[in-house]
């Protein structure tokens, strides 16, 4: 069970199947609810709009609509204000990271990430 009580709902999106599965495992081990798992930005945004989750874990570089585009679209939609966003990216230069935060993401994790640490972060309160 989640320490915050109730169900903490997460949508994830990554175009790389292996990474997506890795994130899914980390999410399931953290004991939070995975409501949708998307392979591109557009499906991710649709899922976020449908489920209004607590957290969206998004890859930055995705076809059609990047993680940054998804965040920007979310931040223009007041109904999604409550959704926090964690960007995961293999782009580690400072400009990209700063760009992610200024687009409206709450956190930015560089790849490679440790599934164990991601799990721990998700289960202890995501701060």
């Amino acid at each position, binding site marked *: 069970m989640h320490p915050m009580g109730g169900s903490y709902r997460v949508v994830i999106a990554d175009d790389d199947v292996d*990474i997506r599965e890795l994130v899914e495992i980390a999410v399931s081990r953290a004991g939070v609810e995975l409501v949708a798992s998307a392979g591109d930005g557009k499906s991710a945004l649709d899922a976020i709009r449908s489920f209004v989750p607590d957290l969206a874990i998004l890859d930055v570089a995705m076809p059609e609509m990047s993680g940054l585009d998804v965040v920007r679209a979310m931040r223009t939609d007041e109904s999604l204000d409550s959704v926090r966003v964690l960007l995961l990216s293999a*782009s*580690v*230069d400072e400009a990209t990271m700063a760009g992610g935060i200024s687009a409206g993401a709450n956190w930015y994790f560089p790849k*490679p990430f440790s599934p164990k640490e991601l799990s721990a972060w998700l289960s202890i309160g995501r701060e």
Partner: protein
Amino acid sequence: MAFDRQGVTMNKLSDSVRVMLFEGRADPSPFVKQSAAIIALLVSLAAVLVVPGLEPTHPSAVWVGAAIVVAATVVAFVLSQSQGLARYASIVPLIDFVGLGLFAAGIGGVYSNFFALIILPVLWIATGDGRRFVGYAIVGTVQAITVGFAVSGSLPETASDWFACVIATILATLTAAIVNELSSQSRKQIRAINSLAEDKERMLQRTVEYAAQLQDSEARFRAYDRMFRGVWSAVTEQSVIGTDVTGLIDAWNPGAAKILGPNAQDTEDKRYIFDFHVGEELENRARELNYPPGETVLNPGFSALVESARLGNAESREWSYVRDDGSLVPVQLSVTKRVDEAGVTVGYLFVASDVTQAREVSRLKDEFVGLISHELRTPLSSILGYLELMRDDEDNPLSPEHIKYLGVAERNAHRLLRLVGDLLFTAQVDSGKFALDAHDLVLDEIISAAVESARPAADAAGISLLELLPDRMAVVHGDALRLGQAVDNLVSNAIKFTPRGGTVTIALDCTERGAVVTVRDTGMGIAASELDKLFSRFFRASTATKNAVPGVGLGLTITKAIVTAHHGEMGVESEEGVGTCFSLTLPLVSEPAFVTVGAA
């Protein structure tokens, strides 16, 4: 001889001078001079033989005298044959005195009209150079008189006899003295004329030489001019623009026309250099330089543009040129000043290369490195993530052997990740996108952290790690992460290159130059010839490749880039087979606080 030597060097311009010199100096030959005496003798002899009443008193003396004069003529002829013998020519008139004296004595001695023939050798001998020739003439005359009395066999007896002798001698003396003086003056004049002629000849010679030099200089100047024009028109990929001190364009090469559009006729003496600059860029630069006074008040931006050059420092920096249609061209522009012969600044030269392509290449390179870095990190994320899942799978615990294999895979995946990071970092340094998150920090802590993180590797390799910290804290302004990376690089390098049983010493020292970190090993060392290439990208020392020490040659490049970005310096000393010592010096923030050893 002197004439011949000069003659060789003379050219046709001075031929007339040479002729004049030759004629001025040459004397008639002894034979020509003697011809007067022999002709006079022959005429006198004919008169004696033909004219009644002129019968000789002593015919034998007449004939002997005539024979002596003929003999003198033969001698004169012989002496005339060679320049070397001509100097003995004075002997001829002396013989003439005897011959003519005898001839006259045979017809009446001093009382005879023929005694006047004596004047001929007197004239000859008196033309000699020097007063002594007057003496010779007197001696010759006295000799001729004496011969006359000797032939008659009596001494002068009457006052009239003595008077005739004295008068003859005085006349000969006066004649000799006058002729001698006239000759002397004539010789002086000839010398003066010759001297003038020589001067003139020398001047002509010099003029000819100057003319040749001038011709030579002109040919050289024309060659330089052709060369310059050739180079000027050949430079079509660089814009070269010259201006006066106010920025008015006075030179515009084909490269400028190619890059900017207008040609030389449209710009020279018509437009200013700052017409082709972005006003805002010039204004910003002027502000940066606090509006330098410059040499013109026309445009403060122009003063900013030429400020370094005006102060004598050639400057090269990026600017944008603006074409007449408003489009911009990024250029790398070097500005230098033009000075006249007195060293006074008369204008500036602006040499610019279009860097549009270079910028594009750099952008593509950045993009490529970013893409590669991203594309490599993604599979590495999977590898490392799943390896971690395997290791931490509590439901299916791995055997110790599998854990060992997993460790190898993980270690190598991390190595690959570091390499990708290094490549990305090097690209960032190249493109100037490498930013420092700088704060005041205690360098001692960074050293200790680096030593501690290197200790497991050192222990595994059987190498002693020594840490020597000063008794005061070294505070520097820098990026803790980057400085840690730099020290880590040096320490891990030292461990890699040191054989088992060796020692790596990491020391920190506060000196006047700043905080000095030294990392000394007892490793294989680096060849002296390779030390200057050590910090080049992808360079690997021969000792590293020979001993199969892993690496790609980016560590020291990155370390140096980090140190340089901190306004520090790197140094290296090494001896093959003995060891290597790397040092990095960083500026200290302030006088470091004194702390006792071990208090920190």
